[in-house]
């Protein structure tokens, strides 16, 4: 597996951290760490359903991944980018109809019952496939799970399913929950969804709504000498600007997922005792995307879309909005997914003259007031950066004679307006790349998704060639061939611009120097933190 | 003498959390054209309530009022507003009866406009005529009412009352706030107007001296009822009710043998030709 490419700024960041002796231990994985201690972490939301087997989202994983484990976790250096968790080995059959998992032995649930293949079979068939937001796609063709013995689970599919997809999806979709607590109950309302029972390094102790979650050390964890922390507290700090202050006041030791606003990082990095870490999010890449409503006749014209792409100064976006903690996008697959990434696609350099020429060519001349046409722009409200990019895009479009009126709405209203009512011309969205195009970026351009499905193609774009490639890749077993299909996919998207990919970014963690072994895998923030330690 | 107004068994109670008072309790009387009926009574006897009932400022609980030959109480909405010009009132509080920022023009112009008494173009000359009739000069027309003297104000109030050419004017303690000299002049004016226009007056007062000077007939009110009624002089000389005796006793100069305070000539009630 090749080294993961990171942006220039990231490299600078990492090397500067390497120079700073205080930050050094954090980057050396599995460093000899002191045991014990309570780690207090900022959390900005309280998911009402904490069960990662049902809700595969980063907000849930952030807390639940310490308690409930997947079959495998992402890894910087493991085979296929994976490291074993509850499964120790996996093997697909050549026809793509079976995958066999060897399961870890000697693992017990937090309530003392043994973990067996029956739990995996139950989770897969009764939870992942029917209930989970992503599992419904990945395991759509899962027919049965055979359990020849307590430590073997054989997944059987009705149609060929690419092992590449399953592998890439494992860290996200395969959280195993205990059959003995869920069987025969209403899974969606089971009390264990909020008071988690898993096999992970930490057990769920309490949740004080509005204040904190408390996880405590699992003394019987299967990992040798793991975990090293005694306790993890997720302190609820819904106000982002509050996290920086709490870190400085040493009330918390870690703020992940850019809980500290990017704009404040420059200053925070100079505060003694705090460090900034941009690693640990490589498999959690967010893409900054301009969604386009193709029902608008102006936007249905590829020239206009190209003009918009030329009007956006990606360097400004990366340097000013993301303060360098991002990189410019070339297409729908981020550079952080080297398995699929293809740089050889049409690109759109920042060039307002070209943009204006394209708009003139398309027949939309500037009016007497300098305006060509007016658009409704809806930036997603989820991140500071999406809103700021909305502000920027309005200005960038104004520069080429397009008058974009921003409509801000809260999350629910934004969701309804864009993905159900199609009440937008342009929207700014931050979709997540989840390791495989089949479960992330393709849904944004594929046609045929009914209205009401969040984060899907609701711009009315339909391209049968593109649809065909996406469909074919979903059942292509051969990894090489499947990758080629996705290369083709990237070319078409970058050429035809059903949407405009602007930038891709990971998050930033700010931590006390006392926190050790952070960012030791590409999904670190949402992994189990078994090795994370705290210097007294 | 033709009957202009007749009141039958009129009743009005005021009910609230604190009290329950029958302000007017079965009142009956009638009034002829060109006649002045004085209503006398101690304070709280229901005089003002009667005035407000007649002007439809409040509604009675029971009873009937016939005015100018038709049922006065059955009138509603715009029908009532159109007929309102026929009964007018002069209030006790001579300042409070005018809008604080009104000019004489406003005060007199409103009834003329509302009842269409004269065409718009003739309104200012009509106002001048009205002012002249109540003994003011047309130069007063542009003055704010609040800047006038008490006597001038009451003249404006009377001018307003006769502007819509009513057949009945209710005067509720209309001269009580004025000093004796002014009072006499106003009373003279009223009598003169009655003589010229044949207006009827319902003259409400607690002051028998005033009533004796202007009333053809007198009614004594007590606790919401009329306890005696008859010729003014007769009642003042020989009150038959306790309330009447008490009222007369309160005004020493009215006791038999005393001299009346003024020597105005009452006009005779006009008779229809």
């Amino acid at each position: 597996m090749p080294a993961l490419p990171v942006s220039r700024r990231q490299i600078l960041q990492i090397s500067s951290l390497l120079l700073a002796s205080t930050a050094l231990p954090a980057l050396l994985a599995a460093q000899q760490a002191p045991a014990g201690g309570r780690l207090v972490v900022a959390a900005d939301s309280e998911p009402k359903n904490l069960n990662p087997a049902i809700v595969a989202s980063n907000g849930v994983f952030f807390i639940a991944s310490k308690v409930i484990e997947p079959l495998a976790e992402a890894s910087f250096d493991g085979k296929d980018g994976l490291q074993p968790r509850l499964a120790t080995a996996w093997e697909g059959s050549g026809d793509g109809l079976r995958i066999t998992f060897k399961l870890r032995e000697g693992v017990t649930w937090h309530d003392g019952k043994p973990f067996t293949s029956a739990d995996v079979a139950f989770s897969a068939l009764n939870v992942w496939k029917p209930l989970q937001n992503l599992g419904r796609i990945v395991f759509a063709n899962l027919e049965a799970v055979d359990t020849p013995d307590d430590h073997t689970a054989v997944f059987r599919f009705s149609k060929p399913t690419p092992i590449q997809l399953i592998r890439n999806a494992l860290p996200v979709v395969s959280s195993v929950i205990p059959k003995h607590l869920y069987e025969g109950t209403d899974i969606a309302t089971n009390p264990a969804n909020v008071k988690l029972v898993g096999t992970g390094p930490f057990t769920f102790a309490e949740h004080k709504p509005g204040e904190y979650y408390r996880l405590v050390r699992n003394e019987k964890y299967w990992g040798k000498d793991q975990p090293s922390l005694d306790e993890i507290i997720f302190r609820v700090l819904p106000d982002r600007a509050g996290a920086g202050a709490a870190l400085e006041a040493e009330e918390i030791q870690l703020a992940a997922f850019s809980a500290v606003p990017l704009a404040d990082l420059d200053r925070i990095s100079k505060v003694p005792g705090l460090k900034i870490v941009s690693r640990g999010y490589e498999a959690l890449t967010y893409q900054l995307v301009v969604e386009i409503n193709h029902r608008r006749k102006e936007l249905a014209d590829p020239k206009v879309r190209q003009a918009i792409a030329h009007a956006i100064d990606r360097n400004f976006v990366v340097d000013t909005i993301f303060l360098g903690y991002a990189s410019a996008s070339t297409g729908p697959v981020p550079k952080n997914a080297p398995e699929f990434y293809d740089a050889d696609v049409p690109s759109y350099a920042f060039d307002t003259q070209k943009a204006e020429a394209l708009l003139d060519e398309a027949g939309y001349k500037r009016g007497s007031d300098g305006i060509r046409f007016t658009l409704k722009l809806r930036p997603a409200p989820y991140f500071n950066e999406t809103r700021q990019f909305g502000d920027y895009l309005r200005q960038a479009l104004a520069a080429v004679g397009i008058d974009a009126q921003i409509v801000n709405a809260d999350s629910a209203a934004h969701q309804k307006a864009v993905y159900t009512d199609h009440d937008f011309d342009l929207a700014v969205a931050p979709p997540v790349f989840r390791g495989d195009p089949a479960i992330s970026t393709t849904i944004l351009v594929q046609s045929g998704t009914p209205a009401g499905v969040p984060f899907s193609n609701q711009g009315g774009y339909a391209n049968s060639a593109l649809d065909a490639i996406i469909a074919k890749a979903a059942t292509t077993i051969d990894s090489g061939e499947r990758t080629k299909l996705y290369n083709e996919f990237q070319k078409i998207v970058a050429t035809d611009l059903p949407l405009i990919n602007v930038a891709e970014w990971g998050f930033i963690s700010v931590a006390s120097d006392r926190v050790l072994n952070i960012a030791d895998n590409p999904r670190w923030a949402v992994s189990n933190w078994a090795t994370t330690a705290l210097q007294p | 003498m033709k009957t202009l107004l007749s009141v039958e068994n009129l009743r009005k109670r005021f009910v609230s959390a604190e009290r329950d008072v029958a302000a007017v309790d079965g009142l009956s009387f009638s009034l002829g054209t060109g006649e002045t009926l004085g209503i006398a009574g101690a304070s709280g006897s229901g005089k003002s309530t009667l005035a407000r009932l007649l002007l439809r400022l409040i509604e009675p609980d029971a009873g009937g009022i016939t005015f100018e030959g038709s049922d006065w109480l059955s009138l509603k909405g715009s029908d009532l507003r159109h007929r309102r010009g026929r009964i007018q009132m002069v209030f006790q509080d001579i300042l409070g009866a005018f809008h604080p920022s009104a000019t004489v023009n406003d005060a007199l112009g409103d009834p003329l406009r509302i009842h269409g008494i004269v065409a718009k173009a003739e309104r200012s000359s009509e106002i001048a005529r009205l002012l002249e009739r109540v003994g003011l000069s047309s130069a007063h027309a542009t003055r704010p009412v609040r800047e006038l003297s008490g006597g001038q104000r009451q003249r404006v109030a009377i001018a307003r009352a006769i502007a819509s050419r009513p057949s009945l004017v209710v005067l509720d303690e209309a001269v009580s706030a004025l000093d004796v000299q002014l009072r006499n002049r106003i009373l003279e004016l009223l009598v003169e107007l009655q003589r010229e226009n044949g207006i009827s007056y319902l003259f409400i007062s607690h002051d028998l001296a005033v009533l004796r000077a202007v009333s053809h007939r007198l009614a004594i009110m007590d606790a919401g009822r009329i306890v005696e009624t008859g010729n003014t002089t007769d009642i003042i000389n020989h009150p038959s009710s306790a309330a009447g005796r008490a009222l007369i006793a309160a005004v020493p100069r009215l006791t038999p043998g005393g001299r009346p305070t003024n020597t105005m000539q009452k006009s005779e009630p006009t008779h229809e030709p």
Partner: protein
Amino acid sequence: MNLIHKLMKTPEGAVGFIILAIMIGIAIMASTISPGDPLRIAGRALVAPFTDPALPLGTDRLGRDVAAGIVHGARTSLLVGAAAALAAIVLGLLVGLVAGFCSGIVDEVLMRVVDAFQIVPGFLLALAFVSVMGASLPVVVLAITLGAWADPARLTRAQVLSLRERDYVAAAKVIGMHPAEIAVRQILPQALPPVLAISATLVAAAILTEAALSFLGLGDPNSVTWGSMIAEGRNVLRSSPWLSILPGLALIITVVGVYLLSEGLAKALAGDGPAMQGKLRNGAAP
């Protein structure tokens, strides 16, 4: 003229008048003082104030001119404040007038609605309203109005109730004046002064409420407001505190100006009648 003269004689009135005159002047002249879209990117990001003559007050996170923002923000803040206060007063007058004049069932129903708006925390209402309706200037104005009209309504009704017992209203009725004309021409002008006396504090409260809404991210994204500038600057409060402090000062100075003016007015009017009580009764904004 007389009133302004009296006003300028009180120290509060004079200072308040001058502050507001300057602010209103800036708001009116905003496009002349600082032409173009105040939201456009004018230079490097985070230029410190007083370092670049072209950008006297520096730039924000995206390189937008802070001076332009403050100048144009004056326009939005004052406009929102004045519009919301005006709407609240007009609505309050209307409801109070109808309730007080009609009495009976109409009064009872209207007053229960007024009660409803008075017992609900106005800011909660505004927050829910803007979140749900989406943030734009008219929605923000409406949201602030919803939380502010009940007081003027109650005040108007109390005035009307006492005024309608006056003889001059009875006199107007007696001459056959239409009830609508009585309400509008006879009662309204007299009911107005105490309601207008609280208008200044309504404006101040509206400006503060708009700022609080913008601070929570519920301001109109297409126009600059001081509240949104403060919120925007909050993320860099420690490294570039001027981004929050400058619009904050503008906001405080304006609100102080409004309060001073209302004090001065109350003093100037005190000669004409009893001074207004509870001058700040509507002032508490979050």
